């Protein structure tokens, strides 16, 4: 389908193969049909309320499945509570000046242990983690991101600023 026209202004058809030589990196079958390198699933689930009286609190399970090397474990499950998330968000904001950290679901003062409230909070925390965990600059730049999401022996003291 090459053009036979003489005028130089007619764009001459160029097949992609003619550009800059043969393709030296062919896509392998594994690359084409295997699990992609960006596999990352974050879930916040199983809210459980512990303690009684003034010491009652709810925590949530963070389940992470991934093949991104920034996360040391391919699968993990840890439990965190809302105040842990607040601390975590604070640290993220201090760590990076360039990245916009999304907001957490709001603080709740009444009805903290009602089902609908907990469910709304669970959804908000999940959304927050999905945005933050998938952020390329945080994955590679944050010292606290992977540990907060995956480390069952996580301790705030290690990361105090």
């Amino acid at each position: 389908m090459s053009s036979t026209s003489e005028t130089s202004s007619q764009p001459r058809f160029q097949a992609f193969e003619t550009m800059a030589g043969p393709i030296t990196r062919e896509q392998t079958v594994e690359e084409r049909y295997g699990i992609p390198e960006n596999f990352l699933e974050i879930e916040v689930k199983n809210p459980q309320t512990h303690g009684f009286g003034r010491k009652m609190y709810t925590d949530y399970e963070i389940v992470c499945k991934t093949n991104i090397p920034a996360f040391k474990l391919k699968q993990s499950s840890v439990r965190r509570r809302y105040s842990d998330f607040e601390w975590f968000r604070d640290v993220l904001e201090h760590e990076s000046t360039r990245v916009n950290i999304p907001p957490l679901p709001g603080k709740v003062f009444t009805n903290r242990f009602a089902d609908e409230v907990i469910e709304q909070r669970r959804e908000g925390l999940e959304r927050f983690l999905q945005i933050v965990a998938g952020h390329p600059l945080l994955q590679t730049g944050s010292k606290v991101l992977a540990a907060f999401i995956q480390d069952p022996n996580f301790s705030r003291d290690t990361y105090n600023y």
Partner: protein
Amino acid sequence: MSVASLFGFSAPVDIKIQLTDTEQVQRKTFNLIVDKSQPVQKLPLYFDREPVRGKVSIKASQGKRLEHNGIRVECVGSIVIFNDSSQSKEFLCLSQELASPGEVLKPNMEFEFRNVEKQYECYYGINVQLRYFVRVIVARRMGNLVKESDILVRSYDPPKEVIPHSIKMEVGIEDCLHIEFEYNKSTYHLKDVIVGKIFFLLVRIKIKYMELCIVRRETTGFAPNTYNESETVSKFEIMDGAPVRGEIIPIRLFLGGYDLTPTFRDVNKRFSVRYYLNLVLYDEENRRYYKQQEIFLYRLPEDDGLPKEIQERERDAD
């Protein structure tokens, strides 16, 4: 309705400028928007050193007498910088007296400007305008009457680069996204095609789609006080969906469909207009990853439907 007549000073005056064709060539015209507040104008194309000739007719309404302090006609080339008028300049101003002070007696007055230098291309941009026009000024005690008629000048200079080369680069974010992009040329004419491809070397983010944009950037002023205006001339989606390692996405973008001008570098040392290809990827959280690359545009005579020999003709006209 002129301001003068609002105050009841004088009846409206109708000034018309009519440009005449040269004998040898059928003059080409182009429909362009010169002033956004006005409809599209049909502008005649003039070449460097060509004469600009025409007739001026001035009519006062209802056959009233029109007294004036002199009528002159000018052939003007002007650069207007909107954000800083001190940078504006009339770099060309040829003047001819049409009538000395008195009364308008003749209905038509002819003018001729010989060997008019037209070295720049007209440009109607966001913060900059370069225009060539014929201006008639009727001087009067209570305020001059001015009428302008634009002409079009275009440059068909070949690009400065002698050896054409492709643009090929590997870019990315360490450990997250590596791509190699390639465009077949760095210099394109206005009806050319951009042929290229994007090769994905590493994809650890979840990409939603990818587009290729043409961006125009106007620069005025001098460092460190340069002022830029950028405009996305077009957006062209080249990929929808998530690629993986080893995937190749082709690019074939026809420039003729967009409102483009040649690359202008330091026109009259007052402004530049440069073009960039902006490759933009969006991930699932709408985060943008982009790489801008300058391309150089030039105008071929064939792009405007003119014969290739236009360069020789301009030289012969001297």
